[in-house]
């Protein structure tokens, strides 16, 4: 599917240049015509990109990844066209963004959407052909009590055969010809060394034909029930019986008892009594992953309380970080404070730490028995910061406040400084008090630029997986719920524990749930941005 998306989408990637001439070429000639310094810089840059793309194409082709090859070819052509064509000025600016947009956003989103409609996951991770092969490999059983045969690989006019010694007699057989004694053959250490009429293969030629040799089954006798000889290492052969046969005509598997397994619509071979063979394969299962999110009682049980906490967490995270950030920004925006720059630099320090690292450090500090906060700051108190359901929620919010306020502080400081001084001055001239100025002038003007960022921050916190995962892991867990989720789990971390930590990985289900979360966040953000637009009409 990706190939189609790839080619159509990328072909349309460089937008057709507008036919009208571009008069805005500030005096000089374009680099597309002029052979000045800029041109050579461009040639070098494009050459580097071309070299990288060609290398990518070659290595992708070497491993038969034709989708990537097609994408890179399109990119290569588009880049060279856009930067050497005289008419492609807009494309020069748009192309890099489009390439990255496609590679990182559109592809990932489309692929997630596609997976959401399949049963991709443990037990269904490949194609039907692979599943058939795996079932057959797994159903081959060594005949109980049979001997191990030192084996010699032989060939005759290109046809491979196995030679073994049975009761002192060398016997040779091929895939079509059951084992038969050969006269005049010699053996050494229980292994045939020379077989008249057959070439004994050396290690190099064995290694060259290993697929054929491993696939070779030599019937022991005319009776198929006796099993067949095969070797996995080229030096020892055992007698195997296959308990499962595949019939390509009817697309069914039949086991030794005659039970017929037919493919069901969930990508498994299934017997009439309901038993399925493993592995199965990946198939499209329609909306099943989506309906399961609402019908599976194991998930819908804790779902509501997690959803509520998810909203509380996201809203309070934004509210607390914004309140603190705004307060500090207003305070440190006052020119009467000395050393403002130092304070400001110190305040944005938490922002400089990677979030997941900070969450881990906080987790250690909040440990009830060994943490710095209880042990040192509170003199050996044993406050269950992360193990009491309510306190854990408070801790999560506090840590997120610590992590998040510098961002709000920066944003608000910037917005405050952009408020024109004359507006404030005229307000003061009109006799407005300091509080009144803040409330009626500063705050509304600030919200114009900050409100959209608050919506974005809400969306980010709604899916703040790394904080929850690193700080509490969702814990303390609910007692006795049929899936292991906890009081501080949010939807995305619940998805993670359901789809991955339950032992059986369910990529299809996880994708469906993340698509659902995307719709929740998308809808709220859309509503939020609609609301913020009104602020601009001040």
């Amino acid at each position, binding site marked *: 599917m990706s190939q189609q998306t790839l080619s159509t989408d990328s072909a349309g990637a460089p937008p057709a240049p507008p036919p009208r001439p571009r008069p805005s070429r500030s005096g000089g000639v374009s680099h597309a015509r002029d052979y000045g310094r800029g041109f050579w810089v461009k040639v070098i840059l494009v050459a580097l990109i071309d070299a990288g793309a060609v290398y990518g194409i070659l290595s992708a082709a070497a491993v038969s990844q034709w989708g990537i090859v097609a994408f890179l070819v399109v990119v290569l052509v588009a880049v060279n066209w856009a930067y050497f064509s005289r008419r492609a000025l807009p494309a020069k600016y748009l192309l890099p963004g489009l390439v990255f947009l496609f590679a990182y956003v559109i592809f990932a989103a489309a692929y997630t959407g596609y997976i959401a409609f399949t049963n991709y996951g443990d037990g269904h991770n490949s194609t039907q052909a692979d599943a058939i092969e795996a079932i057959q490999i797994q159903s081959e059983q060594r005949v109980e009590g049979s001997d191990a045969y030192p084996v010699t690989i032989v060939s005759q006019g290109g046809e491979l055969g196995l030679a073994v010694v049975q009761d002192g007699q060398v016997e040779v057989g091929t895939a079509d010809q059951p084992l038969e004694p050969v006269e005049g053959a010699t053996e050494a250490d229980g292994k045939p060394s020379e077989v008249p009429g057959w070439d004994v293969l050396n290690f190099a030629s064995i290694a060259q034909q290993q697929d054929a040799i*491993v696939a070779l089954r030599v019937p022991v006798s005319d009776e198929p029930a006796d099993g067949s000889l095969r070797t996995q*290492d080229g030096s020892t052969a055992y007698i195997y019986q296959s308990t499962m046969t595949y019939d390509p005509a009817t697309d069914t598997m039949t086991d030794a008892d005659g039970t017929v397994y037919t493919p069901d619509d969930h990508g498994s071979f299934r017997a009439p009594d309901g038993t399925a063979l493993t592995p199965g394969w990946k198939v499209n299962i329609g909306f099943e992953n989506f309906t399961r999110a609402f019908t599976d009682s194991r998930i819908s049980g804790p779902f509501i309380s997690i959803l509520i906490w998810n909203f509380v967490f996201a809203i309070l995270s934004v509210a607390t970080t914004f309140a603190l950030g705004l307060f500090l920004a207003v305070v440190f925006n006052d020119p009467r404070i000395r050393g403002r720059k130092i304070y400001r630099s110190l305040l944005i320090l938490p922002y400089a730490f990677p979030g997941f690292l900070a969450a881990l450090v906080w987790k250690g500090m909040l440990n009830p028995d060994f943490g710095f906060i209880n042990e040192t700051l509170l003199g050996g108190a044993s406050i269950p910061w992360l193990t009491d359901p309510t306190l854990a929620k408070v801790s999560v919010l506090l840590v997120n406040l610590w992590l998040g306020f510098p961002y709000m502080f920066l944003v608000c400081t910037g917005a405050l400084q952009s408020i024109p001084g004359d507006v404030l001055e005229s307000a003061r001239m009109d006799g407005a008090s300091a509080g009144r100025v803040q409330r009626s002038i500063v705050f509304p003007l600030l919200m114009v630029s900050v409100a959209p960022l608050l919506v974005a921050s809400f969306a980010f916190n709604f899916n703040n997986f790394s904080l929850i995962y690193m700080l509490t892991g969702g*814990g303390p867990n609910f007692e006795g719920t049929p899936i292991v989720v906890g009081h501080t789990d949010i939807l995305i971390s619940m998805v993670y524990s359901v789809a991955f930590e339950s032992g059986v990985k369910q990529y299809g289900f996880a994708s469906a749930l993340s698509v659902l979360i995307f719709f929740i966040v998308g809808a709220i953000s859309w509503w939020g941005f609609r609301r913020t637009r009104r602020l601009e009409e001040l």
Partner: protein
Amino acid sequence: MRRSIPVVAAALGLALTMTACSSGSSNEDDATPKPSAAATTSAPALSGTLTMWVDETRIDVMKPIVAEFQEQTGIKVDLVQKVSGDIRTDFVKQVPTGQGPDVVIGAHDWTGEFVNNGVVAPIELGDKAAGFASSAVQAFTYDGKLYGSPYAIENIALVRNNKLLPETKANSFDDLIAEGKTAKVKYPVVIQQGDAGDAYHLYPLQTSFDAPIFTQTADGSYTNELGLGGEKGEAFAKYLAKLGNEKVLLATLDGDKAKQAFLDGQTPYIVTGPWNTTAFKEAGMDISVLPVPSAGGSEAKPFVGVQGAFISSKSKNPLLANEFVTNFLTTEKVQTELYKAGGRLPALTASAEQVDDPVLKGFNEAGATGAPMPSIPEMGAMWAFWGTTEVQIISGQAKDPVKAWDKMVTNMQDAVDGTK
């Protein structure tokens, strides 16, 4: 539209994490199933080279072994280092795309997941199987077939700091706690837990109550029936609550802290495995390794973990891979070398008999009767329910240990039934 870009990016970034990095390649392969078959037939250039995945904890042990293999047979082995947290998932995802390795080194409890996804091929050890510790071969057996060639065995045991307590007379775990208290240090004995609990380290205590995770048949293989329910399991749950109440078990003491407490001489005893004793010895400590005393009256049996090599079901070099896995890795010389480099008990009995290190011998004795960890794919869910409930009982969050335990058993049973 312009403004919603960060929102879309944030949401999609997460969507992207869910599909994980390798999704691209598997998808491409979907669109083009044919070429991989074509590549197989044009493989002769590849002959003589095996690709093997190893994680960072095992790669140094494997390097001299593959060098020796190349010297002996001329087959070059490309060792690819993978992150230990990802190697198992990557193998399951990459093998179907044809990008997987020929051989992967791993633990036996991956077998179930690998077999269920059809990514490993059965191997035949033939008569060599008899030379291995039976639990090691059993560990890699799934549905009656062997899928891995074992090379090392490990299990947990009680480790004693001889400086704090020179000898142990205790026959029961309660006596051990009393004895540990005579050392007059911070803890009498430590067993690591953590937020998500640690059922693995508590398992010897649990089995001493005759409550194994699954019931076992006469030949030692697991059935699908849970063994930890009923009165025996409940008795263990009450015992856990008691230990938690007495502050012998601490829910907040995770693996690193437990190790540090032992290193700092804050406890005479720790229940741990050979992966930590190296550090203890390097720190110059005088330690002894003993079996964990019984808490419930029966013998305390730890889980046994086995390391070994799997062969990919889509290996392009099946013969070379078998040569390495079934013929080379199973020799006494190689198993002994692996033991010397890795410090784990060899799976091959002949090599195990040469082990003279008292610490390793102690672990061997403690694990002699232990059964391998079950390798069914549902174990992931089992561990989660198990550890969570145990830690809730220990911390007192679950007020009624028996009720919490019974609820856990129900959930586990549902998980086993549900994924069948």
